[in-house]
């Protein structure tokens, strides 16, 4: 039997991190605060026309800029670093000796999600137990 355990893979940790709310909504908030930053930049003109108080506009600018940069940083960190874990084992070695390698290590993030959902579905419907019983 080959060794296949998704919970002992790096990519499983990535899937867990990706679901963390700070990372999960980073893209949405990055866009939202970017648009707010643009709007607050435009409101500088209204500040000069004395339609908006100066402190309010400056505060809005500072908050939207900081929040935009923060969520941009989080989004980029997730996409460029966390979602690209380095694999130290070679697939050629694993194929020759499948017992001593966790084959789930070679799954991509999307493939891992599909496999995890399938396992969850099978456990929920007790398909795995039926299969084991037949065997």
């Amino acid at each position: 039997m080959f060794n296949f355990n998704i919970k002992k893979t790096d990519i499983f940790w990535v899937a867990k991190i990706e679901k963390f709310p700070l990372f999960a909504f980073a893209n949405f908030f990055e866009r939202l605060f970017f648009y707010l930053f643009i709007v607050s930049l435009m409101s500088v003109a209204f500040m000069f026309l004395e339609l908006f108080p100066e402190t309010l506009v400056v505060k809005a600018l500072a908050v939207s800029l900081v929040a935009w940069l923060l969520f941009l940083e989080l989004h980029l960190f997730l996409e460029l670093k966390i979602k690209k874990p380095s694999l130290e084992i070679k697939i050629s070695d694993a194929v020759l000796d499948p017992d001593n390698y966790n084959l789930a290590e070679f799954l991509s993030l999307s493939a891992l999600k599909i496999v995890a959902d399938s396992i969850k579905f099978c456990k929920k419907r007790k398909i795995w137990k039926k299969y084991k019983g037949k065997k």
Partner: protein
Amino acid sequence: MEKSERENIIIMWFLWHFYEMPKFLFSVWRNYILFGLDYFSVPLLLKTLFSPWRRYSWVYPKGFDVKEFFNTLISNTFSRILGAICRIVLIIIGVMAQIFIFITGIAVIFLWLLTPFIMIFGILFFLTL
């Protein structure tokens, strides 16, 4: 998973932000500079600055023909001057593009490195208002 769990995410972010990304940005910057040099061919244009425009050149007469000799000389000289003018224009555009790429690259890398400090400064600024 065991390896990743041991790895602190803040240290991971710190290394990514201050080492891996600047390294990547430097490589992108280098590629843009090389692309600019290749696209505008500034070194080649400098080497061939006084070459005839579009290789338009005339052969000098074989016999003793002063009129034809000067006719060819003036035509070839004009071809070379025209070539030089066009190349100088392209060199100026190329150099300006290189300067733009150079300054933009420095600005992007500096801004990237300063991003966390801008955030901290922004929060402090907001709190003091």
